[in-house]
């Protein structure tokens, strides 16, 4: 497991850079992760991220876009505006969650 140094501390990540331990995440780190992929976080981003993290903690897996809309009430269209082009992947990266398992 690779280790990345961000904000002066060691963070465990997978080969692609996704956090492997969600407890190493905090909202400051999210800012840094967002910068890594060219995003600037607004309050609305944080609302989305907080829901995704709470849901993942409860369900044991990263929510899909469909679930974000159905259960969290975040319209897919808006998620595409907040996290352009690859919302599911970008959201999980910034939220410190596992990459959504591409359902086979």
């Amino acid at each position: 497991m690779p280790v990345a140094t961000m904000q002066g501390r060691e963070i465990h990540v997978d080969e692609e850079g996704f956090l492997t331990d969600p407890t190493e995440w905090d909202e400051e780190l999210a800012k840094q992760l967002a910068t890594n992929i060219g995003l600037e976080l607004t309050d609305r981003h944080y609302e989305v991220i907080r829901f995704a993290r709470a849901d993942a903690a409860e369900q044991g897996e990263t929510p899909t876009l469909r679930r974000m809309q159905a259960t969290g009430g975040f319209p897919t269209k808006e998620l595409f505006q907040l996290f352009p082009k690859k919302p599911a992947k970008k959201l999980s990266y910034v939220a410190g969650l596992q990459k959504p398992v591409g359902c086979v």
Partner: protein
Amino acid sequence: MRRLLVLGAGTAGTMVVNRLRPRLPRDEWEITIVDQSEVHHYQPGYLFVPFGTYEPEEIVKPRRRLIKDGVRQLTGVIEEVVTDAHLVRLADGTELPYDQLVIATGTHPNPDETPGLAEPEAKQRGVHSFYTLEDAVALRDAMERFDGGRLVVNLIDLPIKCPVAPLEFAFLAEAWLRERGLRERTEVTYVTPLDGAFTKPLAARELGGMFDERGIALQPDFMLERVDLDEQQLVSYDEREVPFDLLVTVPLNMGAAYVARSGLGDELNHVKVDKHTFLADGHDDIFAIGDAANLPTSKAGSVAHFAVDVFVDNVLRHVEGLPMQERFDGHANCFIESGDGKAMLLDFNYETEPLLGSFPLPEIGPLKLLGESEANHLGKLAFRWIYWHLLLPGRPLPLATSMSMVGKRRPPAPSGNGSSTSPRDLQEVSL
């Protein structure tokens, strides 16, 4: 008398009752199976109907004869599982109490979840599918009339049953266009919400190469918002547009509506289960097997077969109050038709993605993995006979239940910088 109740007499439900009847004493256990339909469809055959390879009557049989004596068969629409009362209610009001319930009602296309797909004029505007027999027949007729233009193959979202079927359709259609002399006049595009041709990296790479060889264009990361029937185009959530003359799409697949009504499902009405034992979350007397369950592996007949192998031994122990000993590993084994009389084979499970190499098959010989061959194509066609005569009756197949690494090989990992802190494809998206 104790009661085992099975909901759905498709691939999984039929196998379950046929395998359990001989092993549960008749004076102790009554077995009942319920389905809304009197006929059983060989669904893998739907893929071949649009090309005229199979006639509809070749892939449909009356359900009654496929189920062993000693199993009570009922016809009716399941309305609700009343978990507290341990009974199932049918639409006609019949109540069926159970001691052990097995949900096997599968997953099914829901075109009305996507604006444009379920409109009455959709087919006239070139919007087709092959995920029901009726749709596959309508598509065959539309292809008969097709005279070139833009053919778009699409899937709305995952999971779908047989996730390789849209790929197979694209390969078969490309070969079919060549045969008909229409290839020069037709643009073929594959539009997918995934970031490549398939979910798993190695398979995505191999399949992507096959797209290039065939001149099939790939539109990845396409989350479809609606189908614009007037303009004949797909529109994504991020406002990309893909025009078509003939669209072949796979609508959103969802479990039966009663699953949600009964409080057993996820957002797509798939039953939440333990992925190794299929016991429904929070219930000791409910299992879900086959496409109906939310397992993180392919929804396919082959998976249902491997799952039933594990399930039969487990359930016999479970009903006696003993711990279940077998654990399902997510084993999936899928042939992919690639056109021109060839096919490839994928073999994988929860932990191991599809790899290259060969798949040992007793008596028949090794089959090539993740590569095209004629033997694989014959394997795929032989599957229809195997399905009716070995699989459904519950006879043994020459396939191991758990995935084996024999014959598999992994290509050397591409050397790159291992110190990345953000995914490469996200870095490339400059904003």
